[in-house]
């Protein structure tokens, strides 16, 4: 087959089925980005953010292996809830998403490789979607694995009592909720940081502002709370944290919403931020010297 035939075939395919072309481009972008982001020395910090609590829970499991009464299960359930809701949602996933998603475009700008992405016949919106999905897959893989490992190590030392708590009690439901909330946190924060990286050359300072916003959102009016990721996550957490003092701000629920609305609300917020990113990417120029 001559080159002209190859080109004609590719052009015909993209004209007749543009969505299939976009789909194929997204899958190629995801594949390449995941490979580039998952197993690299640059991600050691994210491995640490994700797996430090796992190491702590494992140490606790080994250290307290003889303390296995029913009351201890309740206590450990509370500890796990604190790890997930205070550490992972507020810090671990937040900073990991900041590192992963801001690097998707800004990092390529720093490495002076973004022009390769801009010189291929790919719509910039497709580029945003492809890179975003890749970042989401990487973040979800890291943190779902970490949460799963925390959960396993937390209950494994209880033997049959632990197994019963998980499979006959509320354990499995809690795990499902944690995994869902972890995935939603990665998706929501990811969209926020992707947009920030397209808005600002150095997204660190705006990132800190977002962190402050997420922490202080519970004291803002109801409409403003809906513009924070944690507003939706809080409604999906399976265990209430009886926090007192300044930390109590993390558990305030000003206006309860159903889990379904919380999931849909976060997905809508994410979609809105991604649409904004698709507009922002068109403003982006290759100017490595000013980075």
């Amino acid at each position: 087959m001559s080159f002209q035939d190859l080109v004609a075939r590719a052009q015909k395919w993209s004209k007749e089925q543009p969505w299939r072309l976009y789909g194929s481009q997204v899958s190629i972008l995801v594949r390449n980005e995941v490979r580039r982001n998952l197993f690299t020395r640059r991600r050691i910090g994210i491995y640490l953010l994700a797996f430090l609590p796992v190491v702590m829970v494992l140490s606790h499991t080994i250290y307290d292996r003889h303390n296995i009464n029913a009351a201890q299960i309740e206590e450990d359930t509370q500890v796990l809830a604190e790890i997930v809701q205070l550490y992972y949602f507020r810090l671990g996933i937040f900073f990991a998403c900041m590192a992963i998603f801001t690097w998707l475009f800004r990092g390529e700008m720093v490495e002076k490789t973004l022009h390769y992405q801009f010189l291929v016949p790919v719509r910039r919106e497709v580029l945003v979607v492809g890179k975003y999905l890749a970042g989401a897959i990487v973040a979800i893989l890291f943190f779902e694995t970490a949460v799963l490992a925390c959960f396993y190590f937390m209950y494994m030392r209880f033997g049959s009592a632990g197994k019963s708590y998980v499979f006959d009690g509320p354990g499995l439901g809690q795990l499902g909720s944690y995994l869902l909330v972890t995935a939603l946190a990665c998706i929501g924060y990811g969209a926020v940081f992707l947009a920030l990286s397209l808005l600002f050359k150095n997204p660190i300072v705006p990132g800190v502002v977002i962190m402050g916003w997420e922490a202080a959102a519970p004291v803002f009016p109801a409409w403003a709370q809906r513009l924070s990721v944690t507003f939706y996550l809080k409604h999906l957490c399976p265990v209430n944290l009886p926090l007192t003092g300044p930390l109590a701000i993390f558990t305030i629920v000003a206006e309860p919403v159903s889990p379904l609305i919380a999931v849909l609300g976060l997905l809508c917020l994410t979609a809105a931020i991604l649409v904004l990113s698709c507009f922002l990417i068109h403003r982006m120029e290759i100017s490595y010297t000013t980075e």
Partner: protein
Amino acid sequence: MTPDARQIVFENVSKFYGEVLGVNKVNFSLEPGITSLVGPNGSGKTTLMNLMTGLIRPSRGAIYVLGLTPQQPIEFFRQVGFCTQFDSFPPGTNGYDFIYWPLRLHGFGGDQAAKLTNEALERAGMAQVARRKVAGYSKGMRQRIRLAQAIAHHPSVLVLDEPLNGLDPMARSESIALFQAIAKQGMHVIISSHILEEVDRISDRVVLMSSGYVVAEGQIREVRREVRDHPMQILVRCSNASRLAAAAFELDHVVEAKILSDGQSVLVRTRDAEQFYLLLNKIVSGGLVEVDAVAPADDDVNSIYQYLIGSDGGQA
């Protein structure tokens, strides 16, 4: 105005980086063939190329490449290949993947992309080292693998920013032959280069730039003719240099006729080359002087560059 589907058109294009001028009020239309962008560092060559390929957007004006704009990326980047001068690559990539995956993004299937990748690697002389990591390549190899990527999808417009930098003489000569072959197929090849001798040898036309402005544009000889402040230099080798010099001096437009040290050559500086050639024909047909060779001595890019910009292009 409907953009021409064969031309590259810049319509009153300006680009400012904040308050810094990139290029200003650029107007030209390029026909297929080899076009060289010539100018000192900071004159706006790379800005012009980045504008042409959509890596940056114009502050004012419009750009059409074969009637397309970068806002139609699928059609546009099927037609355009750009070999930038950024010597950077995605971390961990090897030469083969560097070409193969962008081809997949073009919409080519796995087998088709592999075929085109191998063809591009062959054309750039990189087939033997394609599976090695790009990080281990020499500067010349990195230059050639970027070139291979730019030509892999057979673009109709090939934009090359300093493509001969870092190449050894053999690779340079092969690359030039490749550019000429591409241009012969009716394609556009846009080259920026500081190596003016090579630009001179391969270009169908030049765009001379200085401080963000296009100072001259067109075929090299046409541009030279327009530089009327500097008389053209014509070298004539003949049997009787002194007689020719004397005859030349009688013409008003001849400002200098110098007999060179070999005694058989005359360097004539004239404001009207056409008239001088007519005189030369007369002298030859009259049998007064036998002419061995006639050649313009300063209608090369370097001379034009010096006349227009006032610096040595080779040093730019």
